[in-house]
């Protein structure tokens, strides 16, 4: 018995030691784009979309688990593996696409920063440059473990959504019912909304970031059991936060008068009648999420690209040791923040474009992943078991189908 307790304690300790990659990836997933999608869903359809969260969580877990497993077993990042197994040209094209996609993503994060601070009457000409510089400095001057600590701390701020969800006093009974009761409607805007929720939740960059973070943290196959739990818990956290965002907007906006909202700031304003705190917490949550994602996305992109193409990379290296890494990182932040400041820049279009590009790159990344994880010379005994492989293929086909449908709808809407 004592031995059993001892083992249990050991697992708990290892669990805390491996915390980081899964949590951070899952939580950053609720970036400004995600918050907007969830708010819009809640504002327009109330509690109805809640049922989608559970299946989305399952899809998310299946993809994330594969990445973290590959990271732990091979000790190599996803871009490393793509390079080693599929050659330079495919890697180069994937990386080029990833930079383009993530650049538009960074733009939408900085748009989120501007939006949320404008709710507090801070001009975007002040807030965006300040945040951009702060993000740059923290990462450039930090090392992996200090950066991770800051990121983990930022995760805590997502609790603001939970609180604002409670402050709105939504109809909990209805929320509970619709969480498990699927409602399908053939209304185009409803389908669009469902597709959007899948599209914002599973993005290409996450796969790269998660795997790289697992490697950088030095998680090995031995600690993988704990790491897997961490990834799964992280995925559930994503959905819990999404749940509260939807519930808050359902309670505050939908139950008063259902309507379409244009940005996440509008959702925050909609919470105002339910008290200044509900509004403020929601806005702070948006700010936190945007800043958080704005610091992780450029970092992850620069890291992935340099790893894949064989340039020196990593926050633990100095500027002179990894010039291309820092140049790319700086460029992504500078351009991403810069365009937000250009008057009349078609930002909404850019954000939609970022979703479209995400959706176009994702199928490739997912297919690379499943091909890689089935290579026995890479994964040894850790290859997908047969049954899991079938589930993975179904998942991937499903995600690809949904994303392509979403891309189709978006592209039609953009013309």
């Amino acid at each position, binding site marked *: 018995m004592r031995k059993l307790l001892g083992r249990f304690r050991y697992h708990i300790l290892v669990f805390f030691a491996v915390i980081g990659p899964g949590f951070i990836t899952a939580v950053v997933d609720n970036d400004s784009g995600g918050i907007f999608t969830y708010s819009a869903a809640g504002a327009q359809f109330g509690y109805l979309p809640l049922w989608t969260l559970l299946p989305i969580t399952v899809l998310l877990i299946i993809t994330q688990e594969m990445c973290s497993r590959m990271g732990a077993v091979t000790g190599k990042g996803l871009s490393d593996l793509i390079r080693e197994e599929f050659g330079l040209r495919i890697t180069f094209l994937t990386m080029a696409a990833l930079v383009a996609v993530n650049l538009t993503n960074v733009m939408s994060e900085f748009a989120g920063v501007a939006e949320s601070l404008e709710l507090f009457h801070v001009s975007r000409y002040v807030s965006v440059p300040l945040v951009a510089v702060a993000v740059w400095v923290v990462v450039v001057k930090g090392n992996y473990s200090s950066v991770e600590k800051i990121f983990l701390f930022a995760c805590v701020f997502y609790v603001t959504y939970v609180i604002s969800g409670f402050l709105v006093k939504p109809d909990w009974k209805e929320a509970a019912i619709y969480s498990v009761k699927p409602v399908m409607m053939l209304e185009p805007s409803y389908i669009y909304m469902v597709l959007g929720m899948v599209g914002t939740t599973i993005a290409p960059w996450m796969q790269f970031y998660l795997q790289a973070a697992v490697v950088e943290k030095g998680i090995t196959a031995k600690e993988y059991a704990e790491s897997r739990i961490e990834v799964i818990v992280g995925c559930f956290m994503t959905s819990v936060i999404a749940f509260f965002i939807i519930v808050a907007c359902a309670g505050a906006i939908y139950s008063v008068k259902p309507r379409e909202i244009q940005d996440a700031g509008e959702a925050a304003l909609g919470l105002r009648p339910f008290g200044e705190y509900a509004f403020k917490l929601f806005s702070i949550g948006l700010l936190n999420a945007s800043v958080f994602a704005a610091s992780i996305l450029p970092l992850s992109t620069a890291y992935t690209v340099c790893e894949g193409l064989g340039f*020196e990379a990593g926050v633990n290296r100095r500027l002179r040791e990894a010039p291309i890494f820092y140049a790319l990182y700086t460029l992504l932040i500078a351009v991403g923040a810069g365009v937000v400041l250009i008057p009349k820049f078609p930002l909404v279009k850019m954000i939609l474009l970022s979703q479209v590009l995400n959706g176009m790159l994702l199928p490739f990344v997912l297919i690379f992943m499943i091909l890689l994880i089935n290579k026995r010379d890479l994964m040894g005994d850790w290859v997908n078991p047969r049954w899991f492989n079938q589930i993975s293929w179904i998942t991937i086909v499903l995600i690809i189908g949904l994303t392509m449908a979403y891309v189709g709808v978006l592209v039609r809407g953009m013309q």
Partner: protein
Amino acid sequence: MADNLLFFTELIAMPVLDLKGRRIGRVKDAALVPLLHASRVDRFLVGGGDAWLTVRFDQIASIALGAGIQLSDEQLVPYHDDEYMLRIARDLLDQQIIDVTGRKVVRVNDITMRIQNDGQRDFLAVTEVDIGMRSIVRRVLQGVLPPLWIRRLMRPIPPNSIRWEFANVVEPDPLRRLRLNISYNKLEDMHPADLADIVEDLAPAEREAIFETIDSEVAADALSEVEDPKMQASILEALEPEKAADIVEEMAPDEAADVLSELEEETSEEILDEMDSEPKTEVRELLEFEEDTAGGMMNTECVVLHENASLKDAMAALKGNEDLLESLNTLFLIDADERLTAAVPLARLFLAQNGAKLKDLATETLIQVTVDEKQDRVTELFDKYNLLTLPVVDEDGKLAGVITADDIISVLRQK
């Protein structure tokens, strides 16, 4: 660019012509056989119809970029995989290798070869491994543009490559490593800190391969320089207990104890069992102390003399401890009960008269701590008294070990 250079990307898809000048296929891959020759391309794998054929280097008459490969002998055998072959496209391209002079891990983009003639035939010798932007452009454009255009296009991009002699292929599989004649001898001449940096950049399997192969003494130095204690532990864990024990024996006892304390008890016991008795007892004693106390920080390697010893005795003692000299700066004096009585700065010995007593050369005040003193307090003492070494005594006042400034630096760096 001299005309007799040929890049591997150009060799790929080059036509192979028989005696009558008919094309029998294109080059698919090329291989070195390191046991026969370190840099000569020994086999060309040619793909025509269904199967690949092997062309030995002595079956070739001429090689030219525009014209292709002209054979002198048509007796070709079908290709079958051979463990003595280092295939360039499969085993080298896109893989990580160690740049011994540049002391870093790099990824192979392309291989530069030289077309040489030994009077009878042309053959290819691998001269450089290309790692820079130039080779990326070449790989990406390969097959899209004619080779001569690509050469012209590349001209403005500065080349970046390492000489083949200074490149070290990493092969985790010990059998294949032997057959391919890959050794890590070149790494043994590197500074342990540089070697540690390289090892940190590699994936776990490759890391272990290096530690398995290199000399235990070098391995011990490098392992001490690996910054992350978790990584140190996982390296030791992956090795055979005997090899791990050999390495641990060569480490300073305090560092050995630190690493072992990171391991699971079972594994560290296994390693301790394999160790020689003398270092084993020292390490075991150190393992008893809490990590953040003076006992956990100290090292048992020091030069100790009786308090009545003379200068001559000191010289004799130093001669007997030559392996400690590099970092030694203080001698310690004890009384008949082994209690610490004085510390003598090494430099004072040089100015002392012949026949002087060591006691008279001692520092005016003896600063010491007990084994259970807290780490913070120890660091404080080093700062306050500008210490290089600090003796640690047990509850009876007997000398237990010494803490040196480099221990303090490691502690501070980890904060």
